């Protein structure tokens, strides 16, 4: 076939990817400036505040870059594995979703720049932003629901035309991801639609703060699995093809995604361990559930190494770790996701420490937490997405990915890894020494204890600058991709090592899984939320303190 991906589908995908990368670049400028302010290198000019930048950085990176890239990537894979073309319905929903999300992003950005929403990306009450900020968030979420409907429509269409056959792995995983997203966004939708919007418009005077926090974190934890699952799609389905191998266990990969669908949501209290209003019993119950959600990642770690090892041994490499040499280190399509996997090891360890009930007191709201999520979302997720972009963009634009782009990509992701190492490393140590996060300055008027943190702030600034340079390389690469020679770039999708019959069909019984997920959520949340509703603390009026 001359075209790797259908033209119309490619347009939908490319629009999402470019929008995502644009958000990343702007968010990256903000991040670099933040680091430099904290490191004492610059002072911000009048007209923009540190906390505005921080709000923009969080929203653009954690909500816009991620969501748009994920939706674009998943539409591309769905198109590829379900016959090479999205249905008109699927594509149409995809476009409506995109526009709603884009308009929401634009309104939100304007509010942030106008200093009417300097509430950070978690927008905790009773800090009160302009109602248009919350409306903007609602538009992004509702838009994503339509995008998800488009993906599910494509999946349903494939299943109707292939009755009795097991779905392609990429499609299964995309559906699981969007399924989790629907479950997760229920929480933030409820709090934004029924609490924040009426309250910020002044239709109600007070807001139940604990309820709003609980609903937000009901969403906030599965949000990170919404980011992670597409990364796992790349690691499970795409990377094996790139290294010349096959998917180690299709069945276990699906099981991992089912477990993520079940256990990603009933765990939000591990972000609220230091709060009043929730008893230690419920906190600990959700800590137990949090530790269970580690299991699909343990399965994934084994599966990835097993893929590497079986591929390497098949190519004749011997010894305990000889197969390591079989891996295509000079191929950015592999190198970038691999760096993401490596970052996920300390990322996962730190995450477990964070969620460890009373031990959270060691790190809560210190900059260790910031170091943690720069390893997970800003490396495991982001660097994998960079690795995808280098082949996906040529593939969907009908061009040939050249060795020059590959080399540029290797430099870009290596700089990114270096920047993260310096910045996140400093954040972890400084956080353990007590340095707080989310603050423009940690000197506290010359305090001696605070002075210990200064050298780490300098390291963070350096790391931030290196990351920004990496983004410049990416921008250069993107411009060069426009001028690539016309041709074909492979869309790498691996085959399974085992035949399709080896995968049990019960894995695809979505009704059962969604039902079980709902049961777990009720078990974890019903009573504590009922308590917040039945014995509400006095509500809070809004504050605009910036």
């Amino acid at each position, binding site marked *: 076939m001359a075209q790797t991906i259908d033209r119309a589908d490619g347009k939908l995908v490319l629009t999402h990817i470019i929008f995502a990368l644009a958000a990343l670049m702007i968010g990256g400028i903000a991040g670099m400036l933040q680091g430099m302010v904290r490191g004492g290198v610059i002072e911000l000019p009048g007209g923009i505040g540190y906390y505005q930048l921080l709000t923009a950085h969080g929203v653009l990176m954690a909500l816009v870059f991620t969501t748009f890239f994920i939706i674009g990537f998943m539409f591309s894979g769905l198109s590829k594995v379900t016959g090479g073309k999205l249905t008109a319905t699927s594509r149409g929903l995809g476009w409506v979703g995109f526009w709603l999300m884009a308009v929401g992003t634009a309104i939100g950005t304007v509010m942030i720049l106008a200093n009417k929403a300097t509430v950070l990306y978690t927008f905790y009450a009773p800090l009160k932003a302009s109602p248009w900020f919350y409306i903007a968030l609602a538009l992004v979420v509702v838009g994503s629901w339509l995008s998800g409907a488009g993906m599910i429509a494509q999946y349903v269409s494939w299943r109707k035309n292939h009755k009795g056959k097991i779905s392609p792995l990429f499609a299964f995983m995309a559906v699981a991801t969007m399924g989790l997203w629907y479950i997760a966004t229920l929480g933030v939708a409820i709090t934004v639609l029924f609490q924040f919007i009426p309250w910020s418009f002044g239709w109600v005077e007070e807001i139940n*703060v604990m309820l709003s926090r609980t609903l937000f974190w009901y969403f906030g934890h599965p949000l990170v699995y919404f980011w992670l699952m597409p990364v796992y799609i790349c690691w499970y389905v795409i990377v094996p093809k790139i290294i010349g191998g096959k998917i180690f266990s299709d069945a276990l990969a699906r099981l991992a995604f089912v477990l993520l669908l079940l256990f990603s949501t009933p765990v939000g209290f591990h972000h609220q361990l230091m709060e009043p209003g929730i008893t230690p019993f419920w906190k600990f119950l959700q800590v137990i559930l949090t530790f269970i959600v580690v299991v699909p990642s343990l399965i994934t770690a084994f599966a990835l190494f097993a893929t590497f090892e079986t591929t390497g041994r098949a190519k004749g490499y011997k010894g305990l770790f000889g197969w390591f040499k079989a891996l295509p280190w000079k191929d950015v399509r592999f190198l970038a996701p691999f760096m993401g996997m490596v970052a996920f090891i300390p990322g996962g360890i730190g995450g477990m420490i964070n969620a460890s009930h009373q031990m959270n007191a060691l790190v*809560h709201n210190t900059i260790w937490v910031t170091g943690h999520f720069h390893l997970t979302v800003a490396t495991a997720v982001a660097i994998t997405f960079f690795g995808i972009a280098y082949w996906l963009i040529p593939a969907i634009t009908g061009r040939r990915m050249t060795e020059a782009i590959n080399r540029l990509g290797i430099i870009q992701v290596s700089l990114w890894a270096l920047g993260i190492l310096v910045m996140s490393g400093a954040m972890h140590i400084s956080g353990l020494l007590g340095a707080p996060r989310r603050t423009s300055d940690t000197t*506290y008027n010359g305090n001696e204890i605070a002075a210990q943190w200064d050298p780490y702030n300098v390291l963070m600034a350096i790391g931030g600058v290196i990351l920004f340079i990496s983004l410049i390389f990416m921008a250069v690469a993107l411009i060069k991709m426009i001028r690539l020679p016309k041709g074909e770039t492979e869309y790498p999708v691996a085959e399974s090592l085992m035949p399709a019959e080896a995968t*049990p069909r019960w894995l695809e019984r979505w009704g059962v899984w969604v039902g079980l997920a709902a049961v777990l959520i009720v078990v974890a949340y019903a009573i504590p939320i009922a308590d917040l509703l039945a014995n509400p603390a006095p509500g809070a009026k809004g504050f605009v303190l910036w």
Partner: protein
Amino acid sequence: MHIHRLEKIWIAFGLVMLAVFLTVLGIFAFSQGVQTPHSYAHQGVDPEKLSETPPFDQPGVYQIGENEYEAVIVTYAFGFNPGEITVPAGARIHFVVTSPDVVHGFEIAGTTVNLMSIPGEVNRVTYTFDKPGEYLILCNEYCGIGHQAMYTKLIVI
């Protein structure tokens, strides 16, 4: 579903590791008293009426036993009431904290005192200050333009 023998061992190892972590945490939390900050009963206070609501109508440090104190603290934008606190070495302090405005953090750097002060709710944690010295108390949850200036000291003599 076929699972490789070595993978079964790995997952078993993982489950045991998680179970050990949870057991350690559970024992320390529920039997050794090393627990998350919390209030036992759901104690709501009206953030607009703190000046009329005991104990927050009189923030301060009160001795309640031999080198044992209750520290009633109001965290506000952008400071702490009471400001500086001074106690003798070995002091066991029960912190009782709330906010009249937005969510603040209450962190004593270098210790495990680290909790959220939420308007409408009362949070509690207990800590014994064995080591003399000057401790930095700071707000570690974004609360507005003066967030980075929100700090005070706890001095242990």
